[in-house]
Structure formats: structure tokens, C-alpha cells
């Protein structure tokens, strides 16, 4: 297990990114701090895994699962629904870079004449596209993991005094 202090800088900036997007999406003021802290935690998990040479898909899955489970108690405390917290938190982890790299590759392939190293372009298109798909899948599975593992009745048992949105 390796850990570097440089990770903490990335943690800070991805928390900033999550809050920035949250403000663009008009999140209620009372959950800004919660989103900052939870996305910091998610980034800490993700970048620690990446530093230990875990694949980015697995790292995203683990981080998003932390977000999924972490959002439930926070949502109860802030009296909102878990998805309103977990979606802005995972926004910085969206594989946008892979997505447009794939499309740039496709455009490149379409525009230029056939060359010998085209096979490399095709490989990079496939790799970027698959990465995008699997990371998106990992993020959504991670975010909805509490609902996949536990039935609704179990989640309702951990209610305290208030009726919560558990979807």
C-alpha cells in the first residue's frame, strides 16, 4: 500500500469540481458542504487505488460504492434524498475524457487516408470507448449498490424517525 501526499491535492481539487458542478445544477445550499466532504472521500479512495496500480474501472467502482453507502446517512441528516447527494459527487468521475477521445479517434480515422499505423488508432478508439462504457457502468452500479444488495424493507429498518426517500 503506497500513499503520497500529492493525492491530497487531487482530493481537494476534485471536491472543488464536484461543488462547482453542483452549483451549476442548482443544488440546495444546505448540502454543499456534504457534497464537498463526500466527494473528497470518494477521490481519496479512487486516487489511492490508482496509486496502487488498480485499474481505473475497479477504482471507480469502489469509490462510487463508498459514495452510494455514504449518501444514505448524510441524506437522512440533511433531510433530502440520497441521489441528490450521490449524483453531484460522482460527476467529476464521469469519463468525459475517454468519451471525446474516442470520438476524436473516429473522426481522425474518417478524415485521413489509410496509413499503416491505423491499427493503433482503432485500438485506441476501442480502448477509450470501452473504458467510457465500463466506468459509467461502474459509477451507476456503485451509486445504486445499497438498493441492489439490500431489499427496500432492510433499508427502511434503518430509518430513524422520519420517512425518507429511499430511491
Amino acid at each position, binding site marked *: 500500500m503506497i500513499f503520497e501526499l500529492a493525492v491530497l*491535492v*487531487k482530493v481537494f*481539487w*476534485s471536491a*472543488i*469540481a*464536484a*461543488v*462547482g*458542478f*453542483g*452549483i*451549476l*445544477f*442548482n*443544488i*440546495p445550499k444546505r448540502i454543499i458542504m456534504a457534497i464537498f466532504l463526500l466527494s473528497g472521500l470518494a477521490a481519496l479512495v479512487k486516487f489511492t487505488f490508482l496509486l496502487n496500480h488498480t485499474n481505473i474501472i475497479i477504482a471507480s467502482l469502489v469509490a462510487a460504492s463508498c459514495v452510494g453507502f455514504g449518501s444514505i446517512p448524510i441524506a437522512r441528516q440533511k*433531510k*433530502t*434524498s440520497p*441521489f*441528490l447527494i450521490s*449524483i*453531484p459527487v*460522482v*460527476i*467529476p468521475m*464521469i469519463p*468525459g*475524457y475517454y*468519451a*471525446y*477521445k474516442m*470520438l*476524436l*479517434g473516429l*473522426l*481522425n480515422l474518417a478524415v485521413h487516408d489509410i496509413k499503416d499505423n491505423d491499427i493503433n*488508432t482503432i485500438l*485506441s478508439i476501442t480502448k477509450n470507448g470501452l473504458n467510457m462504457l465500463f466506468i*459509467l*457502468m461502474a*459509477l*451507476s*452500479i456503485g*451509486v*445504486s449498490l445499497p438498493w*441492489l444488495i439490500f431489499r427496500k424493507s432492510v433499508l427502511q429498518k434503518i430509518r430513524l424517525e422520519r*420517512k425518507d*426517500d429511499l*430511491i
Partner: protein
Amino acid sequence: MLQSEKITEKKAEILLRVCAMLMTAGANTSRILLIINRFSEVLNTDAQLFIDHKAFIITITDAHTNKKTTQLKRLPPHAINFSTLSAISQASRDAQDKNWQYNRIETELNKIELIKHYPKIIILISVGLAGSGFCNLFGGDFINMIITFFATIMGLFSKQLAHKKEFNPYFAAFIGALVAAFFASSALFLQLSTDPHIAVATSVLFLIPGVPLINSFTDMIDGYMITGASRFLNGLVFVMAIALALSIVLYLFSIKML
């Protein structure tokens, strides 16, 4: 038309209005169904819903009078708004607890529609900071981060301008990406920074439609394939617009990025 029929029609209308508000604000399908079920229970009806990205069909049966009605509503353009989502789910809970009637629900929805956005300047600055955050995550140095900050602000500003003039949303994203990438590349052209790629690559990341892409997969996990697929394609077209704008800028400045 009989009075009871009119009441049923009105109930269908208000449920469709809730659907439209939720969908355009960026809720996923299971959430829409949950909230609609709550409201229809309060209104003493049984609601069956067909959900699409651009339209809703609802059939409701009034439990009192056994009257049935079917209505269809086309949706206004999507604009993600989490405050609306939060307020509507709060309202649905309150409606159940306090047994609200039709009029009370309507006044509450009117109130929710008036929820304010953050001030424009705060949105611009925070998204700019988010852009420079992305730049840092991809390993950009301080100068690159500053370039990305201003490029993102310019891009977002022009995208908002295009939205205000009611351009096609994909074209608005295209304009935003074009401006942001152009600004980032011209900063490099003036040799403000040595490593060109990171600022250009991250200056357009704020346009990636994260909420539709995440919602598409959560919908598919829940089994709503049509909405999931249409949300995914919607996101993909946005990404295509961004890639097209980026490739034009890369060509103009002859930057290699693959």
C-alpha cells in the same frame, strides 16, 4: 363535460406537470415513478405512466368515480435543477403526511417553479474552478489551471448565451466547446505554457453531460431500457458535438492530441 370528469382531467394534468418538472430537472425514472405514485395516492387515483425522454403518457383512474382519462404531454427543454428535485420530493412526502388536496398541491408546485438559481457570476466562477480542478486532476501545472479557468468561464458564458437565444441544445454545446477550446489553444499559441494538451483537453470537460449519462445506466439497471437508451444517446450526441468542436480547433492550431 360532467363535473367529475373535469376533476379527473385536472388530476391527470397536475400529475403530468409533476412528471415534466422532474424529468426536465434530471430525475431518473424510478424516482419519477416513486413521486408520481405518492401524488396519485394522495389524489385518490391510480396512475399508469409511459415515460420517454421527450414526452409522457399518463392514464389515470379516479377511485371515487371510476372515470378514466389518458393524456399526453410534450416536455420543454431539459435544464438540470437539483433544487427542484429536492423540493418536489419534499412536497410529495408532505402531501402524504398531511393529506394535501388538489389546490394545495397546485400552489406548492407554483412555488417550486419560482425557485431561484444561484447568481450568474457565482455559477461562472464555480464552474471555472471546477474546470481548473479537472486540469489539476489530469496533471496540469498552475499556468494550465489558470488558462483552463478562464477558458471554461468563456465557454460556459457563450453556451448560456446560446441557450438564451434558444439555439438547439447540441449546437449550444458545440459553441461552448468551440469557444473554450479556442481560448485555451490561443493561450498556448502565445506560448504562455509549454505543455499544450492538458489545458485544451480539460477546457471542454465542463460540457460533458454527466447527469444524463449516469441516469441512463441507473435506468437500465432498473430495467427501463427505452429511457436508459434514449438518455445515453442524448449524452452521446452532446459528446459528439464537443468532439467536433474540439477537432476543428485542434486542426486550426495544428495540435496533435491522440
